[in-house]
Structures are given as structure tokens and as C-alpha cells.
């Protein structure tokens, strides 16, 4: 198993190519085989990491500086394991989601390629190879978003493509500056070779700007909400949980491993932290304002990415960055699980109810109890309540801030948690509302209300926004019957669709049956695979905090400033 590092990448890559040649029904089998294979390969990697610490694998046998090396440390391994576990969950979900749909023929090869690219990113020690991976992931994201097939998805995909190209070009320019200044591309050795000066500063600025654009950090997040909200549900989960972490991972390597030895990064770190704080506040506030479930979750991603960048303000202290590193990697890990579960749950809601409008989620808790439970449990992790993974991550971040006496950042983190609580409870409150109350109660309340407001509201209810209930509701519409049995809601002219849905002066029995069908009881219950994969990922995010100790120890393997100044030197001799 000496070749496990490269096989971890090659297995999904070759499976993706094979799945293009075979009938597409076999693709899920190839994916399952890859899950078993890569899972089996991760075990020897783990054992070796525990036994001997960080290690290298020379592709092409040339070694540094001529060739490309793989380099595995604890952070990289945690990311690999996270990728495996999340893809297992997302694959399970996609199996049910894409069953019998033509998009499946395209989805599985793309998913396998995403896997290969992510594994490659977390293993490579070469900053140019990272650029190639960024291109892979960027184009894959575009194709995956476009899988939705709607014009909204196409425009979101194109916008993402432009943003990603801009980000990649910026990053490539930075890598070119690094290479021309140092003559090497290996991030483990760069900190010893690179020299201080305007070149290094400009290189760091370019690389960071490119990566911020790609991971949608606050002022450059404009592409994210539409891209993540318009993609198919498994793709949204993939994008929000794993793809945005990819560019953050590179930024982490740059800011923690390469440039602290070269530049006075502690001057620039707080700037990134401020952007992160802006992202937390702005993303959370915008999440609160959304009226579509998927958009709310997408803005929550903008906010949660802010925490990752607040970390850069906390890590710029010379003594020991390991606690802060543990905190942020673990935070990224638990956010990935929680966010994937939220998007997958939103996909189930959209499938079952036919929409994801927050205003019409009432009754959701009765119809989809496991999904609403998953929302709650994953939300606990986003807010950062014990025992979730988000709690451990956030606790460690706040702990670092307090020990460094950086009260401002501790405050930002705390406020972010409150805002996350606000938008999570916005989802839960709507979903747990009684299915009958928003439609039925106004009818009872307005028995004596004047009915002359009816003509204003009736055409609106029969409009295109409510195709299914409107047919029920407008069936007995006959304004002449109105005055006798006036069950007209008092606020028909208000824009609230939940109330204006039944402006018809129907008799009480019809009103009740109309209200019942408003939560479409005729729709089939969602596939069990969809529900239980969502539930599993949410529970993982929730219980991750209890299992935090060992991952935290893993992250410390090969962390900068622990052990030798140059991790990996003892292997290269």
C-alpha cells in the first residue's frame, strides 16, 4: 500500500472515465466500488500518518524541485476523510434523487471527477498542481449547476464560470510570481526559499484575492447564492459543503505554511478577519431576509465562510497556531456536514411540496418529520450549540480569541452565532407551523368580514404562482354566491400568499378540504433514501462534537510551528 496516496486520486478518476463508456445505469455501482476502494486506501494512509507522521510520495520519481510530490499531513487527511464521508452521504441521496432521470447519465461521471479533483487537492504539495485542480473543480461546478437545466441555472452557471475564471487567473498570476521569485512550487519548501519583498507581497495578494473570489468571501460572494440555490439539491450540497472549502484549503496553506516565514502576515491577517466579520454579519442578515429556503441556506454559507476567514485574524500570532488551526479545520468539517444536510433536506422539501417558498412551509413538520428534524439538528451545529461539531469549532475559535485577548473577534463570533440562531429558527418556525392555521384560521376569523374585497384577490389566487391549490380553490368561484356564506379573508389584497389563497366564498366544508389540499396531501411521500441520507448527515454534524478529540489530534500532525520548522524535511533527506 505504498502507492495509496496516488490511488486515492486515480480510483475515482478512472471510475469516472469508465462510467462514460458503460451504460449509465452501472455508474452508481462504480461509485459504490470507489467508496469501498478509497475507504480501504484511507486506512493505510491513516496508519502511516499515526505511525511516522507526515510523509511524501514522489510522482514521476523526480522529487523536489523538479517533479510534483504528494504530501500528506493531518489537515490533509482530515479533509480527505471528510470528502469520503460527505460523498458517501451525497451519493446515497443522489441515488434516489436522480433515479430514472436523464440527468443521471451526466451526474455520476461528474461526481466521480469531483472526488478525484478534491482528493488530488488535499494531497498535492505543488501550488501549480493546485491551480490545475482549481480549474478542474471550477469547470465541474459549472457543469453540475447546469444539470438543473433551467434558464436560471444556466445563467447562474455562466456567472459562476466568469467569477471562477477571474479567480483562477488571479491565483495563476500569483503562482507565476512565486515561481519567478523562488524557482520552486512546493508549498512545504517555499517558506525556506521565498524571500521577502514586493514580489512575495504581491504574490500573496494575488493568490488571496483569487481564492477569495473562488470561495465567495464577503465582497466577492455575488455569484454564490444564485449558483448554490439554482443547482439540483445534491449539487447544492456538494458545492456548499466541499467546493468552497477547496479554495479555503489553499488559502490556509498559503497563510499558515508558506508566507508566515516570509512576510509580516500579521499585518494583513486582521484585514482578512474584518472581511470575514463582514461576511458573518452581512450573510446572516441577508439570510434572514430571504423568502426561499435554498436561498436562505446559500446566504448562510456566505456567513459561515466568514468564520473561516476570521480565523486568519486569530492565527497571526507567532507562538503557536495549532489550537487555532484545529479550531478552523474542525469548524470547516462540521459546517460541511451540516450544510450538506440542510441543502439535501431543502431538496426533499422542494420535491415533496413542489416549491421551497418559506411562506408556504406550514405543515411541513407533519409531512416530513425526519427532514424538519434534520433541519433542526443541522441548525444546532450551524448555531454552535453543544454537542454539535459546530459547537466545538466555534468554542475553540472563541477560546483562542479570548486567550489572545482579542475581544473584538470573540464578540463577532458570538454575534454570528445569535444571527445563525435567528435564521435557523426562521426555517423551523415556518416548518413547524400548523398546516391548517395559516390558511384556515383567517377564514374562521373573517366570517363576518365584508366580502366586497373578493374581486381584488380572486384573480391573484388563480394566478400562476399556485397552480395546484388554485384549481381546487377557484372551482366553486362564483362571486354572486359571496354574500350569503362569506368566508372571505379580511386581508385578501395583502401580498401574503398564504392568506390570499382561498378568497372564494366556499362553504366551510369546501374551505376545509381546500385547506387540506393546500398542503399537497396527494403527493407521494419522499423516497426513503432521500430522507435517511439527509438524516444521517445531519446527525453526523450533530454528534461530531462528541468525537472531536481524535480528529483534533490528527489536525495537529504536521501543523506549522510544531516539531521541526520544516515539516517533511526528514523524509526528503
Amino acid at each position: 500500500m505504498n502507492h495509496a496516496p496516488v490511488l486515492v486520486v486515480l480510483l475515482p478518476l478512472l471510475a469516472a472515465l469508465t462510467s462514460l463508456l458503460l451504460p449509465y445505469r452501472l455508474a452508481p455501482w462504480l461509485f459504490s466500488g470507489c467508496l469501498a476502494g478509497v475507504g480501504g486506501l484511507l486506512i493505510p494512509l491513516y496508519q502511516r500518518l499515526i505511525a511516522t507522521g507526515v510523509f511524501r510520495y514522489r510522482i514521476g520519481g523526480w522529487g523536489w524541485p523538479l517533479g510534483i510530490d504528494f504530501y500528506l499531513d493531518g489537515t490533509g487527511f482530515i479533509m480527505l476523510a471528510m470528502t469520503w464521508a460527505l460523498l458517501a452521504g451525497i451519493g446515497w441521496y443522489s441515488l434516489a434523487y436522480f433515479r430514472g432521470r436523464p440527468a443521471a447519465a451526466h451526474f455520476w461521471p461528474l461526481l466521480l471527477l469531483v472526488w478525484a479533483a478534491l482528493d488530488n487537492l488535499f494531497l498535492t504539495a505543488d501550488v501549480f498542481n493546485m491551480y490545475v485542480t482549481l480549474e478542474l473543480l471550477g469547470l465541474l461546478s459549472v457543469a453540475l449547476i447546469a444539470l438543473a437545466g433551467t434558464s436560471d441555472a444556466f445563467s447562474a452557471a455562466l456567472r459562476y464560470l466568469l467569477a471562477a475564471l477571474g479567480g483562477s487567473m488571479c491565483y495563476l498570476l500569483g503562482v507565476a510570481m512565486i515561481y519567478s521569485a523562488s524557482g520552486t512550487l512546493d508549498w512545504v519548501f517555499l517558506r525556506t526559499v521565498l524571500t521577502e519583498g514586493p514580489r512575495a507581497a504581491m504574490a500573496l495578494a494575488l493568490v488571496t484575492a483569487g481564492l477569495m473570489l473562488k470561495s465567495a468571501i464577503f465582497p466577492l460572494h455575488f455569484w454564490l447564492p444564485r449558483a448554490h440555490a439554482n443547482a439540483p439539491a445534491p449539487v447544492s450540497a456538494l458545492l456548499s459543503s466541499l467546493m468552497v472549502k477547496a479554495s479555503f484549503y489553499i488559502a490556509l496553506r498559503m497563510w499558515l505554511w508558506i508566507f508566515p516565514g516570509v512576510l509580516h502576515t500579521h499585518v494583513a491577517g486582521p484585514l482578512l478577519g474584518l472581511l470575514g466579520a463582514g461576511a458573518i454579519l452581512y450573510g446572516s442578515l441577508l439570510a434572514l431576509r430571504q423568502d426561499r429556503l435554498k436561498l436562505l441556506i446559500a446566504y448562510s454559507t456566505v456567513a459561515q465562510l466568514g468564520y473561516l476567514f476570521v480565523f486568519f485574524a486569530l492565527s497571526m500570532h507567532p507562538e503557536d497556531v495549532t489550537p487555532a488551526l484545529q479550531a478552523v479545520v474542525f469548524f470547516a468539517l462540521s459546517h460541511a456536514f451540516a450544510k450538506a444536510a440542510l441543502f439535501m433536506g431543502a431538496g426533499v422539501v422542494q420535491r415533496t411540496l413542489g416549491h421551497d417558498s418559506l411562506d408556504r412551509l406550514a405543515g411541513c413538520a407533519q409531512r416530513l418529520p425526519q427532514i424538519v428534524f434534520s433541519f433542526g439538528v443541522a441548525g444546532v451545529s450551524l448555531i454552535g450549540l453543544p454537542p454539535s461539531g459546530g459547537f466545538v469549532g466555534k468554542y475553540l475559535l472563541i477560546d483562542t480569541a479570548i486567550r489572545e485577548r482579542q475581544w473584538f473577534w470573540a464578540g463577532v463570533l458570538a454575534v454570528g452565532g445569535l444571527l445563525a440562531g435567528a435564521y435557523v429558527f426562521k426555517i423551523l418556525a415556518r416548518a413547524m407551523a400548523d398546516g391548517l392555521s395559516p390558511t384556515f384560521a383567517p377564514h374562521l376569523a373573517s366570517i363576518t368580514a365584508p366580502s366586497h374585497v373578493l374581486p381584488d384577490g380572486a384573480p391573484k389566487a388563480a394566478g400562476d404562482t399556485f397552480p395546484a391549490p388554485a384549481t381546487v380553490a377557484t372551482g366553486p368561484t362564483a362571486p354572486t354566491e359571496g354574500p350569503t356564506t362569506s368566508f372571505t379573508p379580511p386581508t385578501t389584497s395583502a401580498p401574503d400568499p398564504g392568506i390570499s389563497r382561498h378568497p372564494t366564498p366556499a362553504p366551510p366544508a369546501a374551505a376545509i378540504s381546500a385547506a387540506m389540499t393546500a398542503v399537497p396531501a396527494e403527493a407521494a411521500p419522499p423516497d426513503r433514501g432521500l430522507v435517511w441520507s439527509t438524516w444521517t448527515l445531519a446527525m453526523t454534524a450533530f454528534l461530531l462534537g462528541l468525537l472531536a478529540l481524535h480528529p483534533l489530534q490528527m489536525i495537529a500532525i504536521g501543523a506549522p510551528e510544531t516539531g521541526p520548522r520544516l515539516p517533511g524535511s526528514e523524509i526528503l533527506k
Partner: protein
Amino acid sequence: MDPTRGAPRQIPPGADPTGEGRAPSLLVRLLTGVGVTAFGVLLAWAILSLPPTAPGLLHEVREHLPRSGTKSMVTAVLINFRGYDTLLELTVLLIAVLGVFVIRQGSRVPEPPPMPLGPLAREFIRVLAPFLVIFAGYLLWAGGEHPGGAFQAGAILGALGILLRLGGALPDRAWGVLTERLVLTIGIFTFAAAGLACLAWGETFLTFPPAHAGAMILLIEATGTLAIGLILVLLFVGGSLAGTPPATPRPTPEAEP
């Protein structure tokens, strides 16, 4: 000010996601202009401060060239020293085609037929085609000693395919699905197989033994040329040229105007 560079930022950062098509305000445009100008000045300053002789890897490349299996430094770097990058770059090209397939699948808009060429142009393409094939083969072979190789030869093959398409000689459904998929992936398959064969020799992935390196590089480049050529043609056509797979029907012809 380069307008394209500021293009992705034209959406104000706080824009409502539904506010599409709204012209950015004067303040945003002004800020973008100032930002881009400052960025350009800083970049120019950093580039001017680069040393005239960069501490590159030229010396290392020269030193290891005899063991690389090729006499061309570019080929040695592309296929041997940093062959792994090239393997992934071939994958990038494949993904671009897969992305086009995805978009074509969901699109209801039929592709307008290519502009008909006159008889003179068609005759010219007929004469040119065999020479282009020979030229591509020459570039591929020359890559062993001079600048050239898979990407250049593949570009020539791609140009040939585009000419044939424009001349009407390359119709829709020109070949089977499996053939097309096989050619699209054969470059990556061969590259990976060559790399995995090295494991059998007890080396790491892609460590070509010097005795066989030349032959392996030629094989990788030859299959890569085919794949790159087809990928470029399909990107130009904007979709698959293969026969209709049964599960995914194409848009029917009556949708065309």
C-alpha cells in the same frame, strides 16, 4: 481601464440577487475603476522588481534531460517531469466537453446550421485535409526533439475537424456513442495506464524507466493527440456528434425554424 477585467464585479456586492440587468451605479463604476487601476500599478511594480534572471529550474531540467526519454525540454517537462499536471489538464479538457454535453441536453434551443461554404472552399478543404493529417503526425513525431507534441498536433487535428464540419463533410451522428467516448477518454486512459505500469516495475506512479520512456511518451502523446483533436471539434460543434443514445432523445427537428 480594461473593461473585461472589471466585468465580474459589475454586480454591486450588496446587490439583491434578483436585481439582474440593472446598470451599476456611478459610485460602483468609479470604485471599480480606481481598484483596477491601483491593482494594475501594483502589479506593474511587482513585475518590474523581479530579478532579470529568474531562479528557474532550467539547470535541473538540462541535468535530467538524458533520462527523460526525449530530447525536447518542453516535452520532457510536459510528459515526464510534470506529467501529472498534463494528465489532469487532459481531464480539464474532457470536463469542458462534458459541460457542453450537459448544457446541450437541457437546452431547447436548436443550434443554427453552419453557414454553407461555396464549392471553391469545399474543394480546397478536400485538398487540404490529407496534408493536415500528415502535418499533425509530423508535429507529434517532432515533439520528441523539437517544440511540438500532443497539444500542437491535437490543435491541427481539431482545425481539420472544424474545416470538415464547415465544409459539410462531418455530419451529425458521424459515429457511434461508444467510439466518441472512447476517443475522448483514450488520452487519459493511456496516460494513467502508463503511469500504473510503472508501479509494476516497482517505481512510483509515472516514473518512466529511462529505457522505455521514449516509447511510452510517444504512445501517450499519440493517444493524447486524438483526444485533444476530438475535444476541440466537439467544443466547436457545441455538442456530441455521435448517434442518438436511446435514453436521451435529441430535440426533434420540427423545433427548428
